[in-house]
Structure formats: structure tokens, C-alpha cells
């Protein structure tokens, strides 16, 4: 081996540049910008809308077995302390960005908790923040979102975009009201809701899977269709016969023994309507099936690389149909929440676009059932916060508060989602050439 007379320093006899060039990670500054903006926004709100007095955080209900003490803090000073801490975290995020490192998720979580504490202690000055019911009702309000998101995750994992979640929720709400009123049974109402969601899913499947129609368009059209049909039936059939056809029974809360007595967690999670427990089961079951069973493996394969699935003898379209129908049943179950838990009667367009927020939760949750559930819970929290604050009489105009769930959705999906990757074949019909 000769020594090369080139300008590049090389080890004798070996290749030039044996040491591979370093790989440098690409870091987005989205997180840092967002954290800074939120801290600044909170500082501006507190600075301009000065609030006197103290804020009390109530961590338990009076009926609790173990009663946690109430915490009372000076409103404005607490808010400023939190703002300083937020600024520190935002600065840390910038420091990490400059060093080409990403902001870890736990830091964002701590930030969120501090921001919420600061915001609440300022906004609820002079009053009491019922932490337990704030969080407990968040879980309840998130029920249709979580069911919707589960339906969305399942459909998209199999390769079918499910824009029709909203339609499935609405159809479910309608069917639950009707069947519940007719039979007088909440459980029959839930079954009716599942059936209605499945029917919407069947139409989606028919067009999207069998006839290769653009899935987004079918989904949107289905939503409009369900709004039209349910509104028509509501005015023509349900409203005139409200006593017989639109007065379903209601789910009452069940306390689960023992676990419902755990401080903080018990009242939030285990003193809920049975449909919430159904939700826990659904989340666990969907997650487990998707990642641990033969069925789940095939669903994911069909959504990622349908041709590969086909070449190992899996019937792609049949798998997609089954999954989409199941997804419809799950989303429909979420619709039952509106008429069997929330208000005991059906109303026109009563989902208020929750299906679209569920869809956002699917993306924010990176097509994973657990993360999508957490995202839906976040949106549920935003909706509930809005209600609680308007009761407390916060200095924020109520119009702004009504925007909250949607603002959170936009920020979450646009700002905080890191690198997420949809199932490769989502939205693409499978046809053999």
C-alpha cells in the first residue's frame, strides 16, 4: 500500500475518510417559540387585568373518605411566580434549541402544569377552584372525543381516513335517544348508537373501499348527510312526539368500591357514569388488540403496505371493511354520551363539531390509541375549563373562553406535534391492477 500524495490526510492503506461525517440532528424551534409566547401572553393578561384577593384550590369533595386540605394562595403573586418559572423553562428550551437539542416532553408537561396553576390562580381570584370536579368533568366531557378518536385511530391504521367521525357521533346520539326512549333502557340506547355508527361506517366503507371514492370527500359529505337526516327526523318525528320518542333514560354515576375512595384520583376517575368505564375498557382493548394480536398486526399491515399484506394472503379490503365497521361502532358509542349522559334529549347538530376535534386528537396522538386518548382528554379539559371559568366570573371575556378548545386544538396539532408519521397507505384505496 502506498501513501497517497494527496492533500487529504489518510491512514496508510486504508480508505480516505474512514471516520464517517457526524450526523447532526435537526431541531425545530417551534417548542421554544410556543413556550415563550404562552409565558408572554400570561404575563400580559396578569399585567393588564390586575386581580386582587386569594384563590382557593379545593382538592377533595366534602364527602370524601380521605379529605385533602384546601390550598389557598394569593392570586396575583402566585401568578407572577408561575410566570417567572415559565420564563425560565422557555429560556431553557431556547438554550437547548441553540445547542441543537430538542425540548423533552417532561419539561413541556411541567410547563403546562405551572401555566395552568398560574392562570387559574389569577383568573379565579377571590373564588374557589374545584380541582376535582374540574378534572372529573373534563374526563366526562372527553368521552365522545375519546370514543371518536379511537374510531379514527382504528380506521386510519387500516388505511381509511375517517372524516365521518362527527357524523357517526351525531347518528349515535340520535339513535341512542330514540332507542333509549322506546325501550326505556340506557344499554339498549348504547347498542342503538353503536348500530347507527356502524351504518354510517358502512356507507363510508362502500364508497371509500369498494368504489375508490376520495375518502375525505365521502367523509365530509357523510357528515353533512347525517346532519340533514337527523335534523329532518328531529323536527318531523322526534320533536312532535318528544314524550315518547325523545326522552331517553339517563346514565347515573356509579361509584366503584375502594378505588373511588383514593384521594384526588378516585373522585376524578371512578365516580363516573358507566359509559366512562366502558371507555376505559375500550381504550385498553383497542390498544391491546392493535399491538398484541394477529388481528391488530393485519390491520396495521393493511394500512401501511396493503400490497404486502395481499401477497401473504390477507384479504385487504375485507380487513379494511371489518375495521371501519368496528371503528364506526366505537365512534357511535361515543355519540350516546350526548343523549344518555349530557342532556336527556336529542337536539339538532348537538355534537358541535366534536368529531373534528376527535380527528385532531388522532393526529396529535400520532395514530396511537393511548396518545390519542390523552389528546382527547386535553381537549375535554379545555372545554370544561371554559365552562368552569365562566361560572367563576373570570376577567377573560366569555367569547374568548368559548374559543379555548379550538385554540388548544390548533396549537396542539400545528405547534406541538413533533415528527409524526401517518400510516403509509392512509387515504389510498387498494385495487389490484
Amino acid at each position, binding site marked *: *500500500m*502506498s501513501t*497517497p*500524495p*494527496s492533500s*487529504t490526510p*489518510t491512514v496508510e*492503506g*486504508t*480508505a*480516505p*475518510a*474512514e471516520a*464517517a*461525517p*457526524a*450526523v*447532526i*440532528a*435537526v431541531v425545530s424551534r417551534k417548542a421554544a417559540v410556543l413556550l415563550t409566547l404562552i409565558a408572554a401572553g400570561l404575563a400580559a393578561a396578569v399585567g393588564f387585568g390586575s386581580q386582587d384577593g386569594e384563590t382557593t384550590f379545593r382538592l377533595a369533595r366534602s364527602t370524601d373518605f380521605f379529605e385533602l386540605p384546601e390550598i389557598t394562595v394569593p392570586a396575583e403573586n402566585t401568578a407572577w411566580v408561575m410566570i417567572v418559572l415559565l420564563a425560565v423553562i422557555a429560556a431553557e428550551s431556547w438554550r437547548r434549541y441553540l445547542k441543537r437539542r430538542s425540548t423533552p416532553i417532561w419539561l413541556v408537561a411541567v410547563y403546562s402544569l405551572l401555566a395552568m396553576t398560574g392562570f387559574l390562580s389569577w383568573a379565579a381570584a377571590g373564588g374557589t377552584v374545584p380541582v376535582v370536579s374540574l378534572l372529573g368533568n373534563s374526563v366526562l366531557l372527553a368521552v365522545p372525543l375519546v370514543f371518536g378518536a379511537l374510531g379514527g385511530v382504528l380506521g386510519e391504521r387500516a388505511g381509511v381516513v375517517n372524516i365521518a367521525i362527527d357524523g357517526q357521533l351525531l347518528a349515535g346520539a340520535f339513535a341512542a335517544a330514540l332507542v333509549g326512549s322506546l325501550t326505556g333502557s340506557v344499554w339498549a340506547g348504547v347498542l342503538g348508537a353503536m348500530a347507527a355508527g356502524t351504518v354510517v361506517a358502512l356507507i363510508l366503507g362502500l364508497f371509500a373501499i369498494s368504489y375508490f371514492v376520495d375518502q375525505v370527500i365521502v367523509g365530509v359529505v357523510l357528515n353533512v348527510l347525517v346532519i340533514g337526516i337527523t335534523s329532518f327526523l328531529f323536527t318531523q318525528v322526534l320533536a312532535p312526539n318528544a314524550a315518547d320518542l325523545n326522552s331517553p333514560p339517563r346514565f347515573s354515576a356509579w361509584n366503584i368500591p375502594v378505588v373511588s375512595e383514593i384521594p384526588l384520583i378516585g373522585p376524578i376517575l371512578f365516580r363516573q357514569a358507566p359509559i366512562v368505564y366502558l371507555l376505559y375498557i375500550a381504550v385498553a382493548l383497542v390498544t391491546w*388488540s392493535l399491538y*398484541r*394480536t*394477529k*388481528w*391488530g*398486526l*393485519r390491520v*396495521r*399491515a393493511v394500512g*401501511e*403496505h396493503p*400490497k*404486502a*399484506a*395481499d*401477497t*401473504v*394472503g*390477507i*384479504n385487504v379490503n375485507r380487513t379494511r371493511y371489518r375495521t371501519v365497521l368496528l371503528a364506526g361502532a366505537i365512534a357511535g358509542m361515543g355519540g350516546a354520551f350526548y343523549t344518555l349522559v349530557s342532556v336527556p334529549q336529542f337536539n339538532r347538530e348537538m355534537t358541535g363539531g366534536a368529531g373534528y376535534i376527535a380527528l385532531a386528537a388522532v393526529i396529535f396522538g400520532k395514530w396511537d390509541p393511548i396518545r390519542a386518548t390523552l389528546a382527547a382528554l386535553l381537549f375535554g379539559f379545555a372545554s370544561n375549563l371554559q365552562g368552569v371559568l365562566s361560572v367563576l366570573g373570570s376577567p377573560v371575556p366569555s367569547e374568548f373562553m368559548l374559543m379555548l378548545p379550538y385554540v388548544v386544538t390548533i396549537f396542539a396539532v400545528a405547534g406541538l406535534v413533533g415528527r409524526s*408519521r401517518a400510516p*403509509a397507505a392512509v387515504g389510498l384505496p387498494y385495487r*389490484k391492477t
Partner: protein
Amino acid sequence: MQLALRGITKRFGSLVANDRISLTVEPGEIHCLLGENGAGKSTLMNVLYGLYQADEGEIALDGEVQHFSGPGDAIAAGIGMVHQHFMLVPVFTVAENVMLGNEATGLGGVLDLDAARARVREISQRFGFNVDPDAVVEDLPVGVQQRVEIIKALSRDARVLVFDEPTAVLTPQETDDLMGTMRQLKEAGTAIVFITHKLREVREVADRITVIRLGRVVGEADPGASNAELASLMVGRPVELTVHKEPPVLGEGALVVSGLTVADATGLVHVDDVSFSIRGGEVLAVAGVQGNGQTELTEALLGLQDHVLGSITLDGQELVGRTVRQILDAGVGFVPEDRQVDGLVGTFTIAENLMLDRSFGPPFVRAGSLQLGRLEAFAQEKLTEYDVRAPGISTHAGNLSGGNQQKVVVARELSKDLRFLVAAQPTRGVDVGSIEFIHKQIVATRDTGIPVLVVSTELDEVVALADRIMVLYRGRIVGIVPADTPREVLGLMMTGERPEGVVA
């Protein structure tokens, strides 16, 4: 297991893709199916695999006639397939891919991943594959991905194994390994169908050769047949496999690259301080295993890379820092390595593709309006001149065969006022007849006295076209050597070794 195809006919509309094809493959035999791209080999195998239903004819295994309504039936009957485009789910692990469709399950449909891992390890060990069952497929090199495909087929106890163009994506070393595996399988009694259009490989492993042209069996060939005999059977006329060219007449113009460094958006360096020059009338061919900076080098020459240091001058004009438009106007012709992605718009017609880079003004655009008459005349002329086999100039480029698509790209790039030509992988996925034609065009371009840079991962092509050969390894030049450098030396250089006497 003996495989017999009898009189298979498959039509797509008016096109007869397979016309009464009969074929027998004995156990322990490697039967080569040789034919150009588009000859109907893949269609035939898709019929065998149950993906298509034959219009006529039958498939028999050990004399028993089979009826496959889908790949599941074919797999159950013992047929395995290693697809040209791997049928692997990229985000799944090796074990998950291998078990898919054939899952070992426990109670309640729970996946038994341990069983799948064990199966992967067992088969992997038998063939010396060294595949980690828990690796995610998309992170693996293509050569290893192909092994996963083989494991997948074997884990289903395939007794007939079809390899569809398996070497298209492999390095020479990986190709040798694959040949070894095929021989091992053959010794174990597997009947192997090996589909390819590469003559060297056919002669190396085939026991029998069946040649297909335009959907028909045109004859059986002996493995001892010469390359020229096989090629002429395949193409249907005598083919020149060697490129005839005169010694270069060096001209005035020159491309000079000095200290060129190209990094990507993450700061990773792909071309590292590269300097070379090409005189007018000379072909410099770049050899190297794919992924050693060739793509980034050629793209930098056209101004497609964002993070470029150093200088590129063409006839004394600096090109670094200019826009793609300005570089094209300076007379650079560019045949991109992936014509489907960078070379053509599949849903445009041939005529529209021929004027893609000339949409800024005359002759094809005047006052913002397309000159359709002029374009038509031009396209018609190029269609004939470049022997593009198509129904007409309004055929969509996406509907053409690989070879004809490439001819359209070459026609566009060569039919302007050229000062420098870059041809990246000019004949990848192109049939033998078209390869011959494109090579002649490249040599003719060089003979007009302009510098030509050819990039190819096929050593044969590099040796055939080059006046000088530059070997790249990890973004650096290992050496620039004469065209008559022995293949072994070049192969060694491609792994980064710099042999005695070679100067970078």
C-alpha cells in the same frame, strides 16, 4: 416439487401480456426466465402467485392442477416469491414481517412473537444470513431486506421459489451472496425460478434458460451460450454489447470542479472536498457503490443542492451559487438518476415532457402561449430520431416502458445547445436494446467535443463508456484511473482501498 405452467395466456384488454407460455421447473433446478423489461415475465409470475387469474392455461404442481384465487392459495400450495419491489411493511420488525399472514398465536389471538423470532433465527442461521429479528425493516440495507423476503418465503415452507429481478438493487458483493444462497436452496431441493435480464447472472447460476419476448417463449438456451447469443434471443435481433468508440479527441471546453463539498440540511457531508476536471470530448465515469455521494455530486452540478462549498466552472464560468435555470441556460444537460421522480411528469404527454425545461420562451412559448404546432413537429421528429416506441406523441410518459421513458429524457437533454452533459444511472431499469441506443447517444455527444460525466453503479457500464474512471467512496475520491483498469482493482477501490500507484 415440480412446477409446470401449461399454455398460460393473460390478456389486459387488447394487450396479450402472456401468450400460451409453457414452462417446467424441476426440483433442485434453477430455471432462468430471461427477457427484457415488459416481455411479460412479471405478469407470468403474478399469475403463478395468484395475483392475476390466467385467461387460459393451467398451473400444475407435481402433476396436480391448481386453482389459485389469491396469493394465499399459492402460498399454501408451497409457492414463495421474492418480489422485485419488496413486499415488506417498512415500519414492522423483521419478525413481524415474517409472521404476517401466517401468525403463530396464543390464547385470544395474541401474537407469539417469540416463535416468530425463533423461526427467523433458525432460517437465518441455516443460510448464514445474520438477520436480527427485532430490527425494523426500513432501517436495514436493501440487501438485508431482500434476505428478509427470502426468510419470509422459506418460513412458509416454499418448495417453489420465484426470484423476480432480485439483483436490480444489489451491489456486486450482495449479488454474489445471493447467488450463493440460490445454490444452497437448489441443493436442498427447492425449485427456483429466476427472473432477470442480466446475462452475466444467468450464465452463472442457471441450469436451464427460457427466453421470453413480447409475451411468448422464443426458445430455450443453454447456460453455456454466449452473452451475444442470449442477448440476440432476448431482443430478437443481433445486439452489440460492447460500445464502440474512438480514442477521445480532447477539445477546448472543460468542466473544472475544485474543493467541492456538499452537505445536507442536517449538516451531514455527502461530498467531501472533491476536485476533478473533464476536458471537452472526454467521458469521466464515476464508479462506486450507491450512496457514496454520487447523487449529491450530480445534483450539485445542476444547482439542486443548497449547501455547497467550493467551485464548479464550465468553460471558465462559475456555476456554484447560480440558479438551476441559469445553469441550464449555461448549457448543462442532466439525465437524473430516477427518471420517474426527477426526469418526467408521468401524467404529461411525451411532447409536453420534451419541452419541460424549455417553457420559458421561444421556440415553444411565445407571448405566454404554447406553440403547439411547433411542439408537435419537434416531438414527432425526436420520437423518430430517438426510436421511442410509443403510439404517438400524445401518449402519457407514465405509460411507456422504462427504456422508452429514458429515451424521452435523453432526447430532451441532448436536443439543446449542450456545453456539458451529466448522465446519472443512464440505463437503470432499461432494456438491452435501449441500453445499446442510449450508450451510442452518450458516446456521440462526447464526440461532438463536450465534457460528459456518467455516474453508474454498474461496473460494466462504467468500463464501457469511460475514458477515465473516478471512484467515489464516502463522498471522497479514492482515485481517478484509466478506463482499462482491471475490474478487480476497481472493485477494491469501491470499498475504499487505494491500490499501489493510484493517485487521488
